């Protein structure tokens, strides 16, 4: 009896050790990327397409290319519910997974990003907060581990003012124009306020800042004020249900929808569909295309969904936020590929990926090869500039789909960059950080 127990115990141990070793061997050629997602909760309608875009792009790279330079991507989703506390827990849970730990983290929440910024350097995990998070992280001299290309909230706000000037017929026509910023009453929503205030001062714009409390289901008081103030243009920094309610309220007071412009987190399919026909003409900023008219979508249909386009569409392919997740995944993948160019074709550590992010150069030719020509703008990151000052496009909802309604508009770097540097310098002082020399 004792011999039998001993034998079974030894057998179990051998099986366990072999299993662990084979898992290690399998891991050895894999690049792990954590995925902080929100497929449930009040922000799920926005979180699902983003998560699907990430998932499908990683799967595409594995199936079409055999991974990044032969190194397979592995990823694991962790549900944050767009809750900062749960997001940080997810990060802690996933940061050491894979043979080299987390390659990089895409927090997909400004709140979570703020919490992870101090952790990133300690843990050696770079943050890619693409178009969200802390704007002044664009100053790479202070924020070595954080990247927010291709553009930030502040650049976006300046591009919006530029767009208005184009629509009105020139910069001089802005004087006396009434612009109202309707924003989510959170750190995210307030991001554009400082830039808009500075630009209002420069161009003589009459600016009104109007906050909406979370979650934004009830906005009667704000729209009564808007009706009274009669702004010429409204810029909205909303999220989730706030966006669809605002669009519906705008329609109900007969506000001209082509003068109502959301930021790039207020311009998804889930924002306009509930408002029905009233949403027609609504505009929003963006830094990538909407729809499925690019080569990369065809690749996803063929390689990820086995040619079943209906299934791909069911998984939100082509929706604005799906495409955003896809672009974000592409930047991460290309940063890892850039790092491999220096360190060799093997799983990269977080520090190596950080180098890859800082030396990322996605050219027009590169985008063409990826099936994304004209879909988004080229990006060239540097040690000092983690934002790249990328251009912003404006899109318009025609009742059934989004279409580009402007050219790519470069932001007003002369006003935004000094503000970024000033805020970063203040952060460096508060946190006793010596800025790098770039």
């Amino acid at each position, binding site marked *: 009896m004792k011999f039998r127990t001993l034998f079974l115990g030894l057998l179990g141990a051998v099986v366990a050790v072999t299993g662990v070793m084979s898992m290690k061997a399998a891991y050895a050629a894999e690049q792990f990327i954590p995925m902080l997602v929100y497929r449930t909760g009040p922000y*799920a*309608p926005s979180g699902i397409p983003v998560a699907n875009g990430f998932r499908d792009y990683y799967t595409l790279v594995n199936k079409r290319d055999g991974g990044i330079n032969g190194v397979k991507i592995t990823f694991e989703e962790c549900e944050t519910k767009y809750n900062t506390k749960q997001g940080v827990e997810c990060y802690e849970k996933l940061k050491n997974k894979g043979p080299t730990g987390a390659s990089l983290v895409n927090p997909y929440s400004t709140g979570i990003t703020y919490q992870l910024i101090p952790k990133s350097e300690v843990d050696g995990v770079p943050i890619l907060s693409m178009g969200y998070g802390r704007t002044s992280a664009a100053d790479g001299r202070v924020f070595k581990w954080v990247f927010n290309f291709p553009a930030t909230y502040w650049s976006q706000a300046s591009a919006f003012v530029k767009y208005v000037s184009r629509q009105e017929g020139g910069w001089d026509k802005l004087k006396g124009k009434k612009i109202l910023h309707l924003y989510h*009453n959170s750190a995210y929503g307030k991001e554009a306020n400082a830039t808009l205030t500075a630009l209002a001062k420069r161009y003589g714009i009459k600016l009104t800042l109007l906050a909406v*409390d979370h979650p934004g289901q009830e906005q009667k*008081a704000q729209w*009564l004020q808007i*009706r009274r103030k009669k702004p010429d243009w409204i810029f909205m920094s909303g999220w989730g249900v706030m966006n669809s309610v605002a669009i519906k309220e705008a329609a109900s007071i007969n506000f001209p929808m082509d003068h109502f412009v959301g930021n790039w987190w207020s311009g998804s399919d*889930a924002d306009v569909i509930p408002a*029905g026909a009233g949403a027609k003409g609504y505009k929003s900023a963006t830094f990538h295309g909407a729809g499925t008219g690019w080569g990369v979508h065809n690749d996803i249909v063929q390689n990820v969904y086995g040619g079943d386009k209906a299934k791909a569409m069911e998984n939100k392919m082509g929706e604005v936020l799906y495409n955003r997740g896809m672009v974000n995944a592409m930047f991460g993948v290309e940063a890892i590929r850039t790092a491999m160019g220096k360190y060799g074709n093997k799983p990269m550590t977080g520090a190596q990926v950080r180098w890859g992010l800082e030396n990322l150069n996605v050219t027009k030719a590169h985008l063409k090869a990826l099936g994304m020509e004209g879909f988004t703008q080229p990006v060239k990151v540097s040690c000092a500039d983690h934002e790249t000052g990328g251009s912003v496009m404006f899109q318009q909802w025609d009742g059934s789909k989004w279409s580009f309604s402007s050219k790519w508009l470069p932001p007003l770097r002369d006003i935004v960059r000094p503000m970024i540097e000033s805020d970063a310098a203040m952060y460096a002082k508060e946190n006793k950080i010596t800025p790098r020399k770039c």
Partner: protein
Amino acid sequence: MEFLNAVFVAPFLDIADSPVFFAEVVIGGLMSGVMYSLVALGFVLIFKASGVFNYAQGAMVLFAALTLVGAMEKGAPLWLALLIALGVMVALAFAVERFMLRKLINQEGIILFMATIGLNFVLEGAGQIAFGSDVKRLDVGLPDNSFEVGGILFNTFDLSAAFIGAAMVTTLALFFQFTPMGRALRAVADDHQAALSVGIPLKTIWVVVWSVAGAVALVAGIMWGAKAGVQFSLVLIALKALPVLILGGFTSVPGAIVGGLIIGVGEKVAEVYWGPTFGGAIEGWFAYMLALAFLLFRPQGLFGEKIIERV
């Protein structure tokens, strides 16, 4: 000095300067108040009949609206989808009685409250599993146009909501006051055991009241869902009902509607005239402050029953 002026002088001068706009703010507040009352009613019904604060009321609103939209997406016409959703809410009431309340007869209120927290998670999860987490557009054919009368903008959808809310409150108030079932419901709310001892069928009462609360949740879900799309955030509208309940009283149907109107008008007036002084977006916490102020003078709420206990 500037601050004192912004708080105590400027808003009143503004109101005197533009009385038409002030009237529009008040009317807007009344319309919003009706929408809050629709949600608060569900809480009141269940509290009246079982003495339990139903934490799952927001989830019931979501679940009912999801069922309605789900049926419509499958091709059911509106009337059939309404019947299906109502049927599902009645079935839910039976399930709640059979699997939750029956086992908790005569338990402390806090135990029942905890059970409703569990129910909340079940409904949230089941709703999302069955119908997904996407935003769903809900069009029940209510007119949604705006028109001006004397410089005041009215919205036909808001007016419809007000009419539906008023009709529902009147019906429920009459039901509670003048029917044997209504009296039985009030008896159960006072004391489970005493009600049982005089032959009131507790199980039937609970099924009836949860069914009615389910129907109210369906109406609230339709009105809020038609406004912002049917989505998970409907659960959060329960937060809007809390100050209404505190103010109106947990046991009064008319209290829910009067409380809703006071909160609606109060928060809109505060947001428009005092919001800019405090950085904006004050209506969320202002509603609770207003309710708190009323509590100082009437701890049971405006219409709540005064509890006198022998000690």
